[in-house]
């Protein structure tokens, strides 16, 4: 990460989250550390099951517990450790100082309440606004996210709106209390590509005008490149690489990152055949010993199946977890 003068908005140290299931213990997140600079965007990329969503949800304690358990680690935000906080204090932060938007807006909104009620609920809860003030603020927010007839939207139920509109409502709701940090978990995956582009524009625009930090979780390498300043690449619950977005795409260091970049088809050039990462993403209940990527890695050698490599610091503050750089 390039040295920034600004202090971090949020810092996560050595986070471990496990799921206690009948089949065994799934170690979903195993020692993840990162920081999100003020007004910066941290992208977290990885495939399903890599722990990116669990990491993000753990910040707001949104992973159901049981079966999950935050084993250790600290999440520092505004001078407080969110992990040790009692539920009431965390509730005061959730939606107020840290907000979240989810992948599927249709299932994240309550179908039996109007969009207006759901936006106003957050405002009245957190800012203790009167009904009328909350309504005025909701209208402003909906205008800000580009809904042209906000009054009509307020009285609409979620099923009456398109996916793009609903995601705008979600964003309006998430940003209504002026959070310092927005966590976006695959916010555009369910949307059409032209709608996605507009939602990304909107997020970037609002981030600037509200001076907000952002964590963008996605499996789409294009989106990460589009919005992030720094990027974490996760695999099987650990960070395998961390770098500034430019450095990462110019020269990926970890064999997994390199392989991942090779497997995707590109819009601007046509390859005769896509490179393939053999095998499958490991099951978190049965993680391989050593580096979790070693069974699929083309560059593995002696130590890889025995020890887990540490995160090794490279030039420019970037980090990579691979013995090749030891």
């Amino acid at each position, binding site marked *: 990460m390039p040295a920034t003068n600004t202090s971090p908005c949020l810092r996560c140290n050595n986070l471990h989250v496990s799921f206690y299931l009948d089949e065994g213990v799934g170690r979903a997140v195993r020692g993840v550390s990162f920081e999100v600079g003020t007004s910066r965007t941290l992208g977290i990329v990885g495939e399903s099951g890599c722990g990116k969503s669990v990491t993000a949800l753990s910040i707001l304690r949104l992973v159901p517990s049981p079966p999950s358990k935050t084993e250790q680690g600290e999440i520092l935000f505004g001078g407080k450790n969110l992990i040790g906080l009692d539920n009431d204090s965390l509730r005061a932060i959730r939606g107020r100082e840290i907000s979240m938007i989810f992948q599927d807006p249709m299932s994240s909104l309550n179908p039996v309440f109007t969009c207006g009620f759901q936006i106003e609920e957050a405002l009245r809860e957190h800012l203790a606004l009167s009904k009328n003030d909350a309504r005025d603020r909701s209208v402003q927010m909906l205008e800000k996210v580009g809904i*042209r007839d906000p009054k009509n939207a307020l009285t609409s139920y979620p099923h009456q709106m398109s996916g793009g509109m609903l995601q705008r409502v979600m964003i309006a709701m998430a940003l209504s209390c002026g959070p310092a940090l927005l966590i976006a978990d695959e916010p555009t995956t369910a949307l059409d*590509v032209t709608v996605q582009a*507009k939602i990304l524009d909107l997020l970037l625009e609002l981030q600037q005008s509200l001076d907000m930090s952002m964590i963008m979780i996605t499996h*789409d390498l*294009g989106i990460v*490149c*589009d919005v992030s300043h720094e990027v974490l690449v996760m695999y099987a619950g650990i960070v395998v690489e961390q770098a500034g977005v430019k450095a990462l795409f110019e020269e990926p260091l970890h064999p997994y990152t390199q392989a991942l970049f090779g497997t995707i*088809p590109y*819009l601007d050039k046509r390859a005769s055949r896509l490179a393939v*990462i053999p095998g499958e993403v490991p099951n978190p209940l049965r993680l391989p010993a050593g580096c979790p990527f070693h069974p699929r890695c083309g560059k593995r050698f002696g130590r890889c199946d025995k020890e887990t490599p540490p995160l090794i610091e490279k030039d420019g503050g970037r980090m990579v977890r691979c013995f090749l750089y030891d």
Partner: protein
Amino acid sequence: MTNPAVSVANLKVYFPVLKGIVGKVVGHVKAVDGVSFEVQRGEVFALVGESGCGKTTTAEAILGLTAATSGAITLALGPWKDTPVAWNSLDARDRKRLRRAIQIVFQDPLSSLDPRMSIRQILEEPLRIHHIDNRENRIRELLDNVGLSPSYLNRYPHEFSGGQQQRIGIARALATRPEMIIADEPVSSLDVSIRAQIINLLDELRRQYNQSLLFISHDLAVVRHMADRMAVMYLGKVMELGTNEQIYDSPLHPYTRLLLESVPVPGKGRIARRALPTEEKQAPGESAGCPFYPRCREREARCLEAVELKDAGGGHLAACIHLS
């Protein structure tokens, strides 16, 4: 070429909108509204577009699963290789014979496999229905084709990962050795590193068995990789049609350009930022004009008059008044 595997001419598929307890027809959803294209033998033809553009309905009509409201679909497959036929001209027995030559791979592999059938049963079913003998050997060959171990035969779909399930879906589609495969968003639900495996597999098998492939996708990067030719669809109409190079290197229609500019490219980001129209997609009215009109950056009053696909040379067609 003169004898395409599939030929679609002015296809229209309208679904009635019903109202009230008597089910009065109050209007129609024009899912596909005058689509024409041909899939040549051995070619990968893609239908590209966003949700609701009619690409899946078009595929269903080609498979004979949805009845066309009007227009003609003729298939030159199987026994009718030299004498193209339409589904509705065949009796039930002949329909079955034709179906053997055209198969589909679905988007969601798990929901397209029967959870109570073992892999052996899933692969055996098409062989039994089409009276294909030597089944045990065929099943093993199919598993080998898609890179799965024969030891999986007695397992059930839920025991497999998404990538493996899609391999089973592909093996089932290959069971009858079809001449044509329709793949409807076959990699959309898969992880990035698994996607490449499945894309390569589809490509290899198609070459091996000399199949035609109709590839349906909203993912422009995947289509860039796979397709020889493609049609870009929007709200039931073809906006542009051409070869891979024509569409990606010199797109003619403003919608195609918007699509291409909207995709964030890894390492580069998006081409267009903050230059997008604010309008959302809307169902077309009764006008014969361009359905993209409300969102188009280059719209003019005459766009609301009839717009037709025009040839810009070399088989590159676009439906835009700016092309004349």
